[in-house]
């Protein structure tokens, strides 16, 4: 049976070609493409078939799936129904039990090298912590990864290890990149990632048949190129040196910078400040809460959310560098004073010995 192209699927569902073009334009914008590249998106959607997607969940909280289904541009239903064919998902599949497992087998067998594997959650290196139906998480993952065209790591857990890998990491959790080295992997970190970023990445792979441009850590540049801090709506207050000192002071009411209440914006790469959440309504900093840096590597171990800290290298311990530094200088000064006292005393003795 000839598979229908995405355009044909859309027309079959009663949309007009005009609707289709609108969808493609919105999609190009979401993917971070130039307006002039819209025709490439249109061409791809006219020619390409829906791509089978397997969505596996390991040590996760389903938050990424929850975020994904709240995508507004493109609408999640247009992604799910028109662009991809979500063959296996623990959260969204209507089927269950043997039927859904059969659907998974069907994809692995019939579409090798064609399907996209989306992974949510980290994998334990100790199988005892995650084995379903006698099959370990690692085995399930490696089996699905073998024939995948590309793997998308959705969320901080699958990208960096996330909360399951946080100290003391009882399950010895590792990101998926620890287990698969020979497949193209795109990291979409965030706890959860922004819905439009999740759909945008998958749309890019479908449209162009390859991964989007990645940065040095393997994240798509279109969405993780900029720091929250550099695109922040409160940045002017930062440069002016106007800071909220606590959550209930006048500065907080005036919308001052949240740097002193622990904002991790200066060390966090994500598109929250540009794309925002819930269809572009707002994002944490705009709503008065400092960024917690959820899309950064090891974010759970980077100290408490509402204070500024520095991490002692190669540990999960964070300290206040100014306080500890000042104490260290104080101890040094005390040591110097004691040393000086002993020196002076001995010098006096020496003079005395010589009879001076």
């Amino acid at each position, binding site marked *: 049976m000839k598979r229908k192209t995405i355009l044909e699927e859309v027309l079959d569902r009663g949309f007009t070609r005009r609707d289709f073009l609108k969808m493609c334009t919105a999609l190009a914008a979401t993917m971070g493409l130039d307006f002039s590249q819209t025709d490439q998106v249109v061409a791809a959607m006219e020619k390409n078939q829906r791509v089978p997607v397997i969505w596996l969940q390991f040590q996760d909280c389903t938050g990424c799936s929850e975020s994904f289904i709240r995508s507004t541009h493109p609408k999640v239903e247009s992604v799910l129904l028109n662009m991809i064919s979500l063959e296996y998902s623990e959260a969204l599949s209507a089927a269950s039990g043997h039927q859904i497992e059969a659907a998974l087998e069907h994809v692995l067998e019939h579409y090798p090298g064609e399907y996209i594997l989306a992974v949510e959650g980290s994998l334990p290196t100790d199988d005892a912590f995650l084995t379903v139906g006698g099959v370990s998480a690692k085995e399930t993952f490696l089996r699905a990864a073998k024939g995948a065209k590309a793997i998308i790591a959705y969320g901080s857990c699958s990208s960096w290890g996330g909360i399951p890998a946080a100290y003391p990491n009882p399950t010895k959790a590792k990101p998926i990149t620890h287990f698969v080295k020979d497949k193209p992997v795109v990291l979409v970190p965030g706890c959860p990632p922004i819905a439009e970023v999740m759909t945008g990445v998958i749309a890019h792979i479908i449209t162009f048949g390859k991964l989007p441009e990645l940065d040095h850590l393997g994240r798509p540049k279109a969405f993780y190129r900029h720091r929250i801090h550099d695109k922040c709506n409160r940045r002017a207050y930062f440069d*002016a040196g106007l800071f909220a000192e606590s959550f209930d002071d006048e500065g907080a009411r005036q919308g001052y910078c949240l740097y002193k209440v622990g904002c991790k914006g*200066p*060390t966090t790469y994500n598109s929250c400040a540009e794309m925002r959440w819930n269809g572009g309504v707002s994002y944490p900093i705009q709503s008065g809460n400092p960024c917690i840096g959820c899309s950064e590597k090891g974010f759970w171990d980077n100290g408490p959310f509402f204070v500024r800290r*520095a991490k002692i*290298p190669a540990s999960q311990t964070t300290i206040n560098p*100014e306080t500890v530094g000042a104490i260290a*200088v104080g101890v040094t000064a005390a040591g110097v004073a004691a040393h000086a006292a002993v020196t002076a005393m001995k010098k006096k*003795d020496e003079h005395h010995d010589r009879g001076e």
Partner: protein
Amino acid sequence: MSIPTNPKIEQKRTEVIWKRSRKAKHIELNDHMVKVYVWELPVRIFHWINAFSILVLMITGVFIGRPFVSASIQEEAYYSFLMGWARYVHFFVAFLFTINLAVRWYWVYKGNEHATSNPFRLSFWKEAFETIKYYLFMKNNKKHYIGHNPLAQLSYWIFIGLGSIIMMLTGYYLLFEPQPESIYGKMFMWVAHLFGGDSYSVRSWHHLVAWGFIIFTVVHVYMAFREDYLQRNGTMSSIFTGYKLERKKEALGEQDEK
């Protein structure tokens, strides 16, 4: 009990000087004393620019990390640019610090015997150990050094050498990380992998090592005054004039041998 420095041993010539051929100049005062030109002008200029830079970088740096002053009245952002200026000053002085250090590295090869140091010798470490014993008021064989003693040299390797390199690499990474495509961004992107991978880890290094400089400064200033107090050879004034007052035998020991 006395200060355990043996005058006989003190008069032994130092062994840890690397470029013996580049003898420091001296002026004879009388039969016993000479003025040795220990710190040449570029070394002194380096010293004071470096001291100034560290002071300014530390003040602005702590402000950037933990803004300790702020407008006392409610105002809108367009009235002031306090953090902006703190950052501008920090970056400008950082470049000054870097250029200054580069010139000093050049002077290692160009300057006199006291402008350099060679830790790749056993005698360096042996004498450094003797110096530690001296500072702990223990019996020791520390010699008298006209330039820096080996322990002091080691502290410069660690704080002014390694410390500066860590601060410059992490600092420039933090400065250029928002522009990864620019030439400067590309020059420093690799730094992240060396210091933990993510922006937060690189920043943590920058914040922690900064305090190493202040601890170094406290000890360094104390040691300089202490040396001046015990040796009475003009250690403190030498960083302004370049000259130290030394016994002729010690300063010109080699020539006596010939």
